[in-house]
């Protein structure tokens, strides 16, 4: 047990590690000590810097400042291979397996067992089978193509790959996210076996009860800094952990909310919407002038819910109605015609044509209104697009320049402009301020508020809980594809929301 080890040399010590990307400080000074044979958990909200920290450890990113000490010696990992050579293995959240290769080939990818330059297929298979057996999964055949395996089994292969080297530290980025509870047990069994052999594990999870069960010590990251390190994983109270995760330094100003008009019927009605494996039984109404927020962590099913309402994914069950009229499932065209507009999560890949002009990006959904018999009236199009971009205060003004020249906040305005021009009255906003710099955020908030006051029904999804609470009238808290709570935003605060998510996740 790691307690009372202060006199020992940690296996890994990171001191004041700083990593900046153009315009963003991803890590603003992180300290972390990891001892051999311990499970060290990393906690933090989305964007707290966990992923960057992992990538620094794995040699993907090089820190701008700070030192990394490995086994008492200062080291720099200039590339991923260097980290691996020191015995650091990383299991990324998005599994980095080659689907077309077999299990055995994947396990030994990059350090193939060979004889005279030829792949030694038999030795590879045998070693792979040994590793899988060690992990308690002798059922997985080394000859199976990885693409054929379930997500959980792919996770096992990924772990076998980590173990196929002489490994001393394994970083696991949310390994339980794709596993069911039985598989999580098995994973924990493997973790315990590893630590008993003196291997250190850095374990990342949003699930507090997992951390309680498997972890030895906890480090909390917040806004790219270490908020606390070396906390006892079993003794530290939940309230304390949540406080450390949320104690914010950045405050946003939200516009005042006006009470929506609920005397008329709801504008958007979602009833029992379900997509197997993604989310189930989502039911809520949005009235004209109302903003409904969906809070939840990444992977909770938030984007999937929005995309299904919009018809970009086809619902298995349930209905979506606008103004009381149901929309056929799985048809974006019908949803757009009914007056729904989506500002998707990945703006650049899902919403914008970066090489086209701003004007053409705006008018993409409204072409029929500027054309007769397929013939575009360019003057009319230009005039309308110019008006709507000016009303949203897009800077720089003008619609002839290429889309890619706009900043994140202005690109988001263009997406909104597209739906305003179309006359959409139901707006689904997925992470509306992602990639928008701090200064421009309030502008987007005001804009969303204005739109709702003009009678739009707005649904906002965000990983930033204060954003949801500050904008919305009513909040749905989702985790693992289920709505855990619905209620007025005033009755919730960040702690309460995290509490609901972390506790509700236990199942």
């Amino acid at each position, binding site marked *: 047990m790691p307690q009372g080890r202060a006199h020992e040399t940690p296996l890994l010590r990171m001191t004041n590690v700083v990593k900046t990307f153009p315009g963003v400080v991803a890590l603003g000074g992180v300290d972390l000590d990891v001892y051999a044979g311990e499970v060290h958990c990393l906690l933090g909200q989305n964007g707290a810097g966990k992923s960057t920290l992992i990538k620094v450890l794995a040699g993907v990113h090089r820190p701008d400042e700070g030192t990394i000490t490995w086994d008492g010696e200062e080291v720099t990992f200039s590339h991923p291979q260097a980290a691996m050579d020191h015995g650091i293995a990383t299991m990324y959240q998005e599994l980095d397996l080659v689907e077309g290769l077999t299990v055995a080939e994947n396990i030994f990818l990059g350090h193939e067992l060979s004889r005279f330059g030829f792949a030694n297929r038999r030795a590879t298979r045998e070693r792979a089978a040994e590793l899988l057996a060690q992990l308690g999964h002798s059922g997985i055949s080394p000859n199976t193509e990885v693409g054929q395996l379930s997500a959980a089994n792919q996770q096992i292969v990924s772990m076998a790959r980590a173990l196929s080297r002489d490994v001393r530290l394994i970083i696991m980025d949310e390994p339980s996210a794709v596993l069911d509870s039985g598989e999580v047990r098995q994973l924990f069994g493997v973790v315990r076996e590893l630590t008993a052999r003196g291997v250190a594990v850095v374990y990342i999870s949003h699930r507090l009860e997992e951390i309680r069960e498997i972890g030895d010590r906890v480090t909390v990251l917040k806004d790219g800094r270490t908020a606390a390190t070396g906390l006892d994983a079993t003794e530290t109270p939940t309230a304390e952990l949540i406080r450390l995760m949320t104690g914010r330094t950045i405050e946003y100003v939200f516009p005042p909310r006006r009470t929506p008009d609920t005397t008329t019927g709801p504008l958007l009605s979602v009833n029992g919407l379900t997509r197997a494996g993604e989310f189930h039984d989502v039911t809520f109404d949005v009235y004209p002038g109302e903003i409904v927020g969906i809070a939840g962590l990444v992977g909770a099913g938030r984007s999937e819910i929005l995309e299904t309402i919009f018809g970009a994914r086809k619902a298995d069950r349930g209905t979506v109605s606008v103004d009381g009229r149901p929309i056929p499932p799985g048809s974006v065209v019908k949803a757009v015609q009914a007056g729904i507009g989506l500002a998707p999560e990945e703006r650049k890949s899902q919403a914008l*044509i970066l090489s086209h002009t701003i004007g053409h990006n705006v008018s*993409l959904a409204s072409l029929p209104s500027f054309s007769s018999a397929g013939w575009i009236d360019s003057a009319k199009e230009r005039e309308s697009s110019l008006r709507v971009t000016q009303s949203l205060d897009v800077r720089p003004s003008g619609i002839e320049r290429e889309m890619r020249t706009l900043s994140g906040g202005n690109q988001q305005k263009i997406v909104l402009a597209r739906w305003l021009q179309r006359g959409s009255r139901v707006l689904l906003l997925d992470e509306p301020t992602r990639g928008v710099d701090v200064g421009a955020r309030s502008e987007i908030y005001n804009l969303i508020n204005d739109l709702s006051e003009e009678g739009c029904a707005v649904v906002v999804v965000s990983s930033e809980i204060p954003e949801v609470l500050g904008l919305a009238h009513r909040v749905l808290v989702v985790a693992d594809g289920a709505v855990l709570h619905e209620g007025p935003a005033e009755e919730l605060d960040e702690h309460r929301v995290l509490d609901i998510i972390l506790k509700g996740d236990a199942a």
Partner: protein
Amino acid sequence: MSGEITEKTAGEVSPSVVGDDPRPTDERSHPLVRLFAGGFGRNLGLVIALLLLCVVGFATAGDRFASTDNLMTILRLGSVIGVVSIGMTFVISGGGIDLSVGAIVALSSVWATTLATQQMAADIHWIIMVFTAVAVGAGCGLVNGILVAYGRVAPFIATLAMLAGARGLAEIIAQRRTQIIRDRDFITFFGGDVLGIPVLVIIFVLVATVGWIILNRTTFGRRTLAIGGNAEAARLAGIRVKRQTAMLYVLLGIACGIAAVMIMARTTTGTSTHGQLYELDAIAAVVIGGTLLSGGRGTIIGTVLGVLIFTTLTNVFTLNNLDTSTQAVAKGIIIVVAVLLQQRVAERHQASG
């Protein structure tokens, strides 16, 4: 002239906007650089290349090159592949590719010249042959389009299958024989000229004009470019991406049908060997014209210039009695140089934007 949709972007931004731009772009560079980086510049580059070719032609072949007759020969030669290339511009702008155009031309020409079709044409009117060729082309395009858009077969594979299948079917129908066209009116009409301009050239000009209008002035064209630029964004903006994609292949099929009629008129035959390697010539002309092979940007004027460059090249080589193998080498070099130059321009554009 520079009227192409996407070509306006770099050239026409007013200088007053530049000061507000958080990131410097091309607009800050020298006016001449701007001119050449824009669509106008791309076309200008092609025009210069074409002029250079003409200088070479005149220097090596003298009056045999610089005669009205020879000019018409170049245009007539270029017009058949030109019509196919206009259609190809749409498919490539929309993010696709079609390898089957030559085979479709062959099948259309064979089908339109079978004994049965010719008999019907003799009974009614030669226009039957035209309808048949265009309908066969459209049908093949529809099959391509359905496979690509609804069957989600990669365009390369779907049209590769059509390439093999259509030419094979043409061989079966024609029994590997060359079918002679007997209808003199058909040949007189398409082989003739109006005010000294061959009818084939007029058809090419018409097709290019209509193509330009569709690509730049209609919702169809805008949606095509949107799909090629970002299919997912187009889908989430409520555009029927599948239907639009399928229609692009139909459009190209129709162009192939028209080209088949033109080649039938020029050779007075229909045969399964028509349109050999048209897919490569058309793709090459489209790409050196400045249409992005990855989609999202298309230029009809560039395609026309690309076609003229290749046809003039062939003509100059022929006049100098150089064999087709040397021509092929020159073509290859031109394609590589043109694409390398375009990439440099595009990269600089991206890096600054």
